[in-house]
């Protein structure tokens, strides 16, 4: 089921990678030898010709890759939820006033208390998969939790716990 990415050398310029989606559209990336890269979208009527060619800087390309990576990760989690009946996945934001801002994941004792697991943390545009007990939370982190309905509600309550609780 893996998608096929084709690589075509462009002598004197660089290399082009393209991917034909299951919907029949083609998306390509032209990587120039000088480091520049263009995201290329192809015409539906004339699949040989590029409809738009969007130059991306290093940062932009990285951001785009991250966004796609993050949504892919969440998609896989959603798949997991469907496979195991009764298990739910939820994204829970850590409120700014939470007791756990600046503290470690282990301190929440979430799994012991609720049976639900924190499987990932979304921070800015990064996905931190399977964070360990010593992982420090920051304000604005979103945790991805897998568990039963009751477990998820329990984690929400724990994370919402105000400082000094």
């Amino acid at each position, binding site marked *: 089921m893996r998608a096929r990415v084709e690589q*075509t*050398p*462009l*002598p*004197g*310029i660089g290399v*082009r990678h393209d991917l034909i989606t299951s919907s029949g559209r083609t998306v*390509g990336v*032209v990587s120039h*030898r*000088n480091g520049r890269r*263009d995201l*290329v979208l*192809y015409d539906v*009527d*004339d*699949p*040989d*010709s*590029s409809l*738009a*060619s969007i130059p991306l800087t290093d940062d932009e390309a990285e951001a785009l890759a991250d966004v796609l990576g993050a949504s892919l990760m969440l998609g896989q989690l959603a798949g997991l939820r469907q496979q195991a009946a009764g298990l739910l996945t939820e994204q829970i934001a850590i409120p700014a006033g939470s007791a756990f801002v600046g503290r470690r994941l282990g301190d929440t004792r979430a799994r012991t208390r609720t049976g639900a697991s924190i499987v990932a943390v979304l921070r800015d545009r990064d996905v931190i998969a399977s964070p360990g007990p010593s992982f420090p939370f920051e304000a604005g982190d979103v945790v991805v939790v897998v568990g039963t309905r009751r477990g998820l509600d329990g984690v929400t309550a724990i994370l919402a716990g105000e400082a000094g609780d």
Partner: protein
Amino acid sequence: MHDTTILLIEVGALLFALGMLGRLGRRVGLSPIPLYLLAGLVFGHGGVVPLSASEEFIRVGAEIGVVLLLVMLGLEYSADELVGNLRSGLLAGTLDAVLNAVPGAAFALLLGWGFEAALVLAGITWVSSSGVIAKVLGDLGRLGNRETPVVLSVLVIEDLAMAFYLPLVTAVLAGVGFLGGLQALAVALLTVAAVLVVALRYGRAISAFMSVKDAEALLLSVLGLTLFVAGVAAELKVSAAVGAFLVGIALSGPVAHHATQILSPLRDLFAAVFFVFFGLSTDPADMPPVLLPALGLAVLTMATKVVTGYVAARRGAIALPGRLRAGLALMPRGEFSVVIAGLAVASGVEPELAPLATAYVLITVVSGPMLARLPDYAWFRRMVRRRMAVRQAVQPIGSGD
């Protein structure tokens, strides 16, 4: 001392004028090559403002310009790319050579020019301008198009073929006859094969010999090596240009990348001088009589380039619009045609060849990039789509053939 002063004034004024012309050209979307050629016509013998003191300087500058044009071309390609392309694009390349070189040769013979001039004109009409075409493809946003690798592959084969063609022409123009030409060709074949093998096997070692960290040292060592090899190649009658091209191919990796960056400004300077020099050696008064033949030859060989691109793209499973784009993109002739014509001028083979080549390059390099835009216009697309619809409707029934 007086001569030097005039030289400074002349060269300064010339370069400044070229800079202004180049800027003007960019504004209207024109390659600077035709403008430089025209400037050469204006400043040359029989031109409006003939240069006096700086001619010798410009002659030497032009020589360096050819060498730099070729080494930069070589730097653009790695040995892997050349060998890989040779396998996939050989058929398209052969077709390209036959379709475009033969009309040039036939034309020269029709004019009663003799064997040497025919060989030269064949080269002039054969080789598309990889510089101009790469720029046009980038400007039109076609680098991602599926027909673009086909176009590039044709250009690579042409450029590689020059490594054999230029020594052949150099030898024939030196008056060694056909057999001597073949001997030069054999020497060139062996040299190129040896350089490719060495570059593939030991490319890293050669490049490691030069440090990337010190830009100044890199500039001097790459430039020095190139000029040295070019000179030795010329001494061995293999053509200086080919020596420079091979140096470019042999360098790879970060060294090639950095060398490209630091040599680019030098190339721009001396290549401009080269184009001006070629214009200088043409008397504008010789131009009018050859204009019509040049136009005819241009129309014919631009059509054959369209056929080349069409067939090459069809082999690459590209649909009709892409085939037309590939064909139309291949039309402009430029730096290489001028380099080849320059060899002929230097040996004084046929007085009418230089003005014809100038007019021919001017016509193709100006009209080519404009015609390459055709497939982007709405009316052209509609026409092509209608043509495709008709064909699709006919095909299922078409049992006649």
